[in-house]
């Protein structure tokens, strides 16, 4: 394992026990790696389709953040809540989203979970604990908190809710209010901050002043962790640990991962403003490449296996794209245009 940068800021972590499934183990690492690969390759595909003019709306990818994201998705289980954000393709897949759901949404299929009403990263299946983000950053934090409150009301046990946000998103009032509310209610919320050094074009120097965003944890009275977001092993360990601590009643967990957005804000953005020094530094390393290296070095996988995984991922992607491309797009004449669940209370158009 790479130099262990794990730092429990507020409370010493109970030492990661190897019997518990929160830390590093071969199977989990391999599985996580495969989700990362699928996420990376599928997003590359969407980006290509975008450049070919095949996708309406923007494409925002998680390149460089897959290790962190997958660690969230893979640490959760059925009955948990996950509210991903824009760079969470890996975590979504690991949490259980089908690649077809994602692909249908990008390609505008009527059969996708959003049926063309909403697009790209805004997809989800809330009934299955997989929330559909609104754009307004920070908004999903109190929403997840409320879902956890509901589970407590309903007498459920051993559940966790996780949501992700960027360095920019920490500046929103919603972040503050949401995390504080979760702390007051001592909810099992895992809040994962990906400090990727930019909010769109805005560097962190224009976003916050503390040395590490994890310093916020103390002010909320929650447990906090700072970690290297480029290291899959570290991400799996820290996120896994935090999820289990939340699950076992230790209240909200704030995780701050340091990494770099390896590309533009979206595919429309050439990212010319990203500091060359950052790119060359440790934070600028590609978590997927590092994980691959780690895998091979530790003999947890062979080159041949990796090739096969890649081929398999590409096949899945081609299949999903082919399927979605054959499917009908939404038809305005088939939409009921009713915004209410209580259909008869939806208003028609007056004065037309």
């Amino acid at each position, binding site marked *: 394992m790479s130099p262990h940068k794990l730092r429990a800021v507020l409370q010493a972590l109970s030492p990661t026990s190897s019997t518990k499934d929160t830390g590093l183990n071969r199977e989990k690492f391999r599985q996580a790696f495969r989700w990362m690969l699928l996420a990376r390759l599928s997003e590359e595909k969407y980006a290509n389709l975008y450049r070919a003019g095949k996708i309406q709306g923007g494409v925002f990818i998680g390149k460089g953040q897959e290790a962190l994201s997958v660690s969230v998705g893979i640490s959760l289980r059925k009955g948990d*809540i996950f509210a991903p954000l824009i760079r969470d393709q890996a975590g979504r897949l690991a949490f259980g989203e089908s690649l077809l759901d994602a692909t249908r949404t990008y390609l505008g299929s009527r059969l996708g*979970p*959003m049926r063309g*009403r*909403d697009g790209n990263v*805004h997809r*989800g*299946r*809330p*009934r299955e604990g997989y*929330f*559909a983000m*609104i*754009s*307004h950053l920070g*908004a*999903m*934090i*109190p*929403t*997840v*908190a*409320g*879902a*956890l*409150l*509901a*589970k407590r*009301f*309903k007498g459920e046990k051993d559940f966790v809710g996780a949501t992700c946000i960027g360095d920019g998103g920490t500046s929103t*009032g*919603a972040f503050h*209010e*949401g995390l*504080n*509310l979760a702390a*007051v209610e001592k909810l099992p919320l895992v809040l994962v901050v990906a400090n990727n050094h930019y909010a769109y074009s805005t560097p962190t120097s224009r976003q916050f002043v503390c040395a590490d965003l994890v310093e916020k944890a103390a002010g909320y009275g929650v447990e906090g962790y700072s970690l290297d977001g480029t290291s899959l092993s570290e991400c799996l360990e820290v996120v896994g640990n935090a999820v289990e601590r939340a699950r076992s009643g230790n209240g909200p967990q704030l995780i701050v991962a340091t990494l770099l957005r390896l590309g533009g804000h979206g595919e429309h953005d050439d990212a010319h403003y990203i500091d060359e020094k950052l790119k060359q530094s440790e934070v600028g390393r590609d978590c997927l490449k590092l994980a691959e290296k780690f895998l091979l070095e530790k003999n947890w996988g062979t080159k041949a296996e990796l090739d096969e995984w890649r081929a398999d991922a590409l096949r899945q992607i081609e299949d999903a794209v082919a399927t979605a491309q054959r499917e009908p797009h939404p038809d305005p004449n088939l939409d009921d245009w*009713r*915004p*209410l*669940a*209580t259909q*008869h*209370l*939806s*208003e028609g158009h*007056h*004065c037309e």
Partner: protein
Amino acid sequence: MSITYLEAIREAQAKALADDPRVYIYGQDVGNFGGAFKATKNLAKEFPGRVIDAPLSEDAIIGSAIGAAIEGMRPIIEMQYADFSTCGLNQIVNHAATLFWRTQVACPITIRLPSGGTAGSGPFHSQSMEALYATYPGLIVMTPATVEDVYSMLLEAVAIDDPVIFCEHKYLYYHLKAEALPTEALPTGKARIARPGRDITVVAYSAMVHEALAMAEELATEGTEVEVVDLRSVKPLDTDTVLASVARTGRLLAVGEAWPWGGVTAEVVARVACEGFDLLDAPPRRLNAKETPVPFHPNLWGTHRPTARSIAIAVRDILRQ
């Protein structure tokens, strides 16, 4: 026995809590204190763990209700004053209102907004926000004017699968009394003829219904018979009942306590003009509050909002045409 508008709100919440385990109440000071207006008095004691004090965080309060609703609960949210809902507005209009249409998952939350002006409350504790919320697809906006309605509509709000903005009027909290709670009610979306009359239709809602009724009483002594329509909910807005009334009277005045630009009175007049143009024997009219923030001092406040007196002047004016 007699029961106030405020007590009816409490009773409706007590019944909702008793009848449905999915209901809980969340808001600032709603717990042991019973709410800034005592609308949740004793409920925390009667329903332990289900009436909960929230931090001073409107955005998170609403956001949490949305999450809880997704998980199957039916939260009742009390904003301390309607005016503070601007701090939670993003979650209401962009999240709660869009959830069902985007995901087909319903969002059954009830947001209680203590609304409207009272003397000495000023610009930040007096606002009428019904039109702001009514503009957004995906929300239902109720504006009950009577003790009976505030009770039955609040129960209905909790039962409905969609987010309901429940505009209860602070002026009516103590002013309005009824003999008993109702056992039946009009369905949501139906307006009510608060007073029948043949000469002119005055459309009002919430506290303005009572100004309109007082005006009608007075004008009756002059032989003018005013029909007062109480909209009950401004979204959905019961155009049919309004049109039917205008069909009888041929004249229309729409009265609202909110500001002049836009709002319920514009929507009512526009609908009647578009859909009932030929029913009108005279130009329709609107009467709103004045075009300034709601003033603090009672002298100014009493002039800022429409009153029985100013409504009477407008009605007489229309009838002269």
